[in-house]
């Protein structure tokens, strides 16, 4: 295997050799290598197949803008990531990588037939090719064609890694650790401001890492870099974050940074997070993100071996890797000349430098002559050859008037190209800062900003090291000053500066039919110049539309390379200047970012808060099956050995109806309302009348929105003249308290009353069933439990099992019942004590499903299940709970709006299926005539439906138009298997006389 590593060049650690594999072949690299540099060092250029045409593709860049070299990377133990850019993936010992979008192999890929079928896949192919015949959608287009196009495969195993997040506040955030960013961080750091400097690469330094011979203030670049890094590390007010990409810039200088912590490590410590999302709030931001080199647009510019000149120079100077043995450079900019010179000096045969400009700086030509490099000034490139690697380039002179002369072919294994540089203004664009077109530099530059933000260096078009340093220093000290710290920017002296002139490329002239040229603009999405011209011919004028029609710039690289070239091609086709064509919007994230980083700690058990009651542990130990109710997990039912849910619920229901059951009701929302105006406040909030409710008594309370619709309900006990214990639904607790606070603070601030959430102060044990009183009597102190002294809907304070209790005599089952509130820490102990004592009654713990069945048998509704935000009290059959003589309460006025009084409103009713064994599906639609044509006239739907063991048949609630007047009528429920019929009834199925409540 050939070795392209050059002795004495680069910064990789030659003492640390690393083994890795690509497509099953083992290679070696060094610490400090990226996968791209290590593959190039082994002579590997072919790394992937393109998105649509499956064209062989190589490594185009040396940075995060890479569109071609996407690989699958495997870090073991299920840690597989598709679409990793080889140019940012750091090599570590044992790294396994593979190419993507090819079958059966990278060199012999069947899908490459797409390349010959270009006409099927031209601009807008989704809208055209796949339209007809319709039957082809299912059979051909989706399974075959879509499968053939694409990137890597998503991993199938759950992500085993953990992720972190961190908030940070600083005076100055500097994005980018190149010359400008370092100078900015130094100034801000010296001023005493708190500074965060982040850079996406593994090493801080940016382009300085590829400039070993430049001299800065008398020091070689790498020596200066080492000293500078040491100086920054010594400042306690400066945090330097390598491997950290600023992915998004949001309001008020809030910037998201993705820090990669462990991907580059061979051995990841247990529990170490893979990545961390920094959420930085900076007083001032300096964006020093540098510039991205532009490809040239010519036929065959996408073959493996064709790469950006600056990238080749980086591979040589930073990694000590020559990208080929016979190199040709084609350029419209000085920078490719310097790349060619460096390669030639490293012993690489540079066959020619082709410059499309008519004139180039004379010192470049002289330097080329000295290195015996042939120069073709005013020439163009019109094609390349080579199946899996470029083997030759076709060049032509361009005469006066742009006439392209006869072709010459030059053999090469690598073709460098440079179309100039585009300032990286992505993050600035996130802030909705305006951009202005710079005609001289043929580039967009930052205009008016909307945040406390500065740009510096090449990122705002100040090219060259000295310009970058001085611009960075100026930005850093100005940012520090605006954050309140004095700073005086230092001057910089730079030797060995490169010349940096050029013109911006439009598509290169050719002697062939440009309509057949495979001249790529967007390498990742396989968009060619002719696609953009086609879009223009088909009538698209806005760049936003052209982008979407051709998909130019819509790949995962967000058009870092393609946007500006696409714009130039569109501008030529539209015969309008570039600024008149416009620019598409960059959006976060700057580079692809893993979902895990966004999730942070919120995965697995911490995905969401799981609230558990104090009794939850007992339920878990006793085999409860859980269901989520808002953020809570609640015991759903308690199956015994061999029982399914149906059997368990039937057993639990029977126990409550015949003896006693116990239920953990701790999740009920609880609000303590205290103050001399408490009753007045209750009168205004709830529909019911509260003034006459005596202390020690409870009442069912109904809460409406101002629109008159039911919002919540619950039993409310009056503990004292000035103190109410309000309960709410489990899911409504926070909402109800918020609504009450709103009225109290903003409508009735004069009322002397305060609200406190006590949901979690109390554990609540519901004991329900004919033996409930017998069970608790021996444990209760200070409360007379007799029917006369403590009837249904009474409340009292006392002690149970020796701990304080608020004891409610209430029932959501229709049986004699108590709800025992005890301070939360005693909940489980009291529960266990009562469970033990209840054994002689066959006490049975029951879950939410049984609670639902029992309440439905009694016709009690559940707000949020039987109501949906469109039901009035009357719709729900709760008119009795509305205090009609009260002058006002929240929602009262709405109840007399014309629509609320309409005759045909949906009303809540009972339903009994004709076949008693049929349990209807909740949510099923109801029709009056099952034989009407589709679409049928749906008059309502089923809201609750259960098997009632007590009745030996199913029961249901439904909302039906005018339902209460249709009692006894038959309705129909069409379902996929058959149409069920049911009779409309009242809602109380068990003990309509309420005799059991007072048993």
């Amino acid at each position, binding site marked *: 295997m050939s070795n392209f590593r050059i002795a004495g060049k680069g910064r990789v650690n030659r003492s640390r050799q690393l083994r890795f594999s690509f497509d099953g072949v083992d290679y070696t690299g060094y610490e400090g290598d990226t996968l791209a540099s290590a593959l190039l060092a082994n002579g590997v250029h072919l790394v992937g197949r393109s998105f649509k045409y499956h064209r062989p593709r190589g490594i185009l860049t040396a940075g995060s803008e890479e569109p071609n070299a996407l690989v699958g990377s495997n870090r073991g133990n299920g840690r597989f990531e598709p679409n990793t850019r080889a140019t940012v993936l750091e090599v570590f010992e044992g790294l396994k990588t593979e190419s993507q979008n090819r079958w059966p192999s990278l060199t012999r890929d069947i899908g490459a037939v797409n390349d010959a079928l270009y006409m099927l896949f031209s601009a807008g192919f989704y809208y055209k090719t796949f339209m007809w015949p319709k039957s082809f959608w299912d059979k051909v287009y989706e399974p075959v064609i879509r499968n053939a196009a694409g990137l890597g495969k998503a991993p199938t195993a759950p992500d085993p890694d953990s992720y972190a997040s961190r908030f940070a506040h600083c005076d100055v955030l500097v994005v980018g650790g190149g010359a400008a960013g370092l100078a900015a961080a130094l100034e801000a750091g010296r001023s005493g401001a708190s500074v965060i400097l982040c850079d996406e690469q593994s090493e801080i330094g940016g382009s300085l890492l590829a400039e070993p011979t430049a001299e800065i203030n008398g020091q070689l670049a790498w020596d200066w870099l080492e000293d500078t890094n040491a100086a920054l590390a010594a400042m306690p007010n400066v945090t330097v974050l390598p491997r950290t990409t600023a992915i998004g810039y949001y*309001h*008020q200088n809030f910037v998201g940074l993705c820090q990669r912590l462990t991907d580059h490590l061979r051995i990841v410590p247990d529990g170490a997070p893979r990545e961390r999302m920094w959420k930085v709030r900076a007083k001032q931001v300096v964006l020093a993100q540098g510039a991205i080199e532009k490809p040239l647009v010519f036929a065959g510019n996408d073959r493996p071996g064709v790469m950006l000149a600056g990238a080749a120079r980086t591979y040589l100077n930073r990694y000590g890797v020559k990208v080929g043995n016979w190199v040709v450079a084609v350029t419209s900019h000085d920078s490719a000349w310097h790349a060619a010179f460096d390669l030639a000096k490293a012993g690489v045969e540079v066959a020619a430098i082709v410059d499309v400009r008519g004139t180039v700086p004379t010192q470049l030509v002289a330097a080329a002559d000295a290195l015996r490099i042939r120069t073709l000034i005013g020439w163009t490139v019109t094609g390349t050859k080579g199946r899996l690697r470029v083997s030759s380039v076709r060049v032509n002179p361009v005469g006066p008037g742009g006439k392209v002369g006869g072709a010459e072919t030059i053999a090469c294994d690598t073709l460098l190209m440079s179309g100039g540089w585009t300032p990286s203004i992505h993050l600035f664009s996130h802030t909705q800062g305006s951009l202005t077109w710079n005609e001289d530099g043929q580039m967009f530059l930052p205009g008016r900003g909307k945040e406390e933000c500065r740009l510096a260096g090449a990122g705002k078009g100040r090219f060259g090291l000295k310009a970058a340093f001085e611009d960075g220093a100026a930005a850093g000290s100005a940012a520090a*000053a*605006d954050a309140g710290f004095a700073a005086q920017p230092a001057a910089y002296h730079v030797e060995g500066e490169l010349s940096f002139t050029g013109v911006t490329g439009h598509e290169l002239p050719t002697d062939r039919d440009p309509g057949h040229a495979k001249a790529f603009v967007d390498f990742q999405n396989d968009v060619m110049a002719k696609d953009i011209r086609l879009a223009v011919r088909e009538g698209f004028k806005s760049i936003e539309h052209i982008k979407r029609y051709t998909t130019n710039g819509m790949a995962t690289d967000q058009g870092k390379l393609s946007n500006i070239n696409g714009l130039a091609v569109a501008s030529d086709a539209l015969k309008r200047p570039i600024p008149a064509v416009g620019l598409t919007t960059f959006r976060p994230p700057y580079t692809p970012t893993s979902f895990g980083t966004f999730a942070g700690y919120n995965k697995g058990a911490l995905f969401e808060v799981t609230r558990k009651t104090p009794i939850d542990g007992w339920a878990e130990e006793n085999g409860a099956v859980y269901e989520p109710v808002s953020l809570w997990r609640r015991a759903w039912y308690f199956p015994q050995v061999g029982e399914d849910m149906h059997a368990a619920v039937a057993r639990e229901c029977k126990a409550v109806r015949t003896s006693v059951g116990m239920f953990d009701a701790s999740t009920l929302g609880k609000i303590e309302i205290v103050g001399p105006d408490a009753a007045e406040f209750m009168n205004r909030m709830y529909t019911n009348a509260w003034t006459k409710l005596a202390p020690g008594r409870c009442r069912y309370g109904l809460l409406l929105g101002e629109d008159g619709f039911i919002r919540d309900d619950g039993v409310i006990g009056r503990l004292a003249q000035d103190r109410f214990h309000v309960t709410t639904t489990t899911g409504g607790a926070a909402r109800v308290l918020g609504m009450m606070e*709103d009225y109290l603070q903003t409508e009735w*601030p004069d009322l002397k009353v305060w609200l406190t959430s006590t949901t979690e102060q109390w554990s609540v044990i519901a004991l329900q069933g004919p033996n409930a009183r017998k069970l608790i009597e021996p444990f209760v102190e200070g409360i007379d439990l007799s029917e006369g002294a403590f009837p249904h809907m009474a409340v009292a304070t006392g002690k149970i099992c020796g701990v304080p209790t608020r004891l409610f005599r209430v029932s959501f089952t229709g049986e004699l019942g108590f709800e025992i509130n005890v301070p939360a820490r005693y909940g489980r102990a009291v529960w266990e004590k009562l469970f033990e004592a209840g054994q002689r009654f066959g006490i049975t713990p029951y879950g939410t499903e049984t609670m639902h069945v029992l309440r439905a048998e009694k016709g009690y509704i559940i707000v949020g299940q039987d109501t949906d935000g469109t039901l009035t009290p009357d719709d729900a059959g709760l008119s009795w709970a509305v205090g009609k003589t009260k002058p*006002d309460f929240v929602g*009262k006025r709405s109840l007399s*709006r014309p629509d609320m009084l309409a005759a045909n409103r949906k009303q809540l009713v009972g339903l009994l299926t004709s076949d008693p064994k049929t349990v209807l599906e909740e949510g099923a639609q109801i029709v009056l005539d099952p034989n009407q044509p589709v679409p049928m006239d749906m008059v309502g739907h089923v809201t609750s439906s259960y098997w009632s063991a007590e009745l030996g048949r199913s029961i249901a609630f439904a909302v039906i138009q005018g339902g209460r007047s249709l009692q006894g009528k038959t309705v129909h429920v069409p379902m996929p298997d058959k149409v069920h019929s049911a009779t409309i009834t009242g809602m109380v199925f068990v003990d309509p006389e309420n005799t059991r409540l007072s048993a």
Partner: protein
Amino acid sequence: MLLIRCPYCEAERPEVEFTYAGEAHIARPADPSALSDDEWRDFLFIRTNPRGRHFERWRHMHGCGRFFNAVRDTVTDKFSMTYKAGAPRPSDEEIALASSATADSAASVKDARP
């Protein structure tokens, strides 16, 4: 994430501590039964929904718990000022003054540390 100044805590706090609560200065009528159906409809549902300056309510839900009012631009998302619930709708002059005061305070920080 926005920073919002709570007029009760007299501090800028992160947006996650706050909840939005709709348009401000829509008082519940003292006697709803005296309103016509149309008037009541307007109170319930009709909002200005402006492009630009908006008077709106926020609550420092996970902070001091208070509802308060704010002047915010719905295009730029920028807050001009916040003020306590019950305070009258600020005039153009007051809003301009509050906006420039924010700018001034930033400048004065710069001067304070030469």
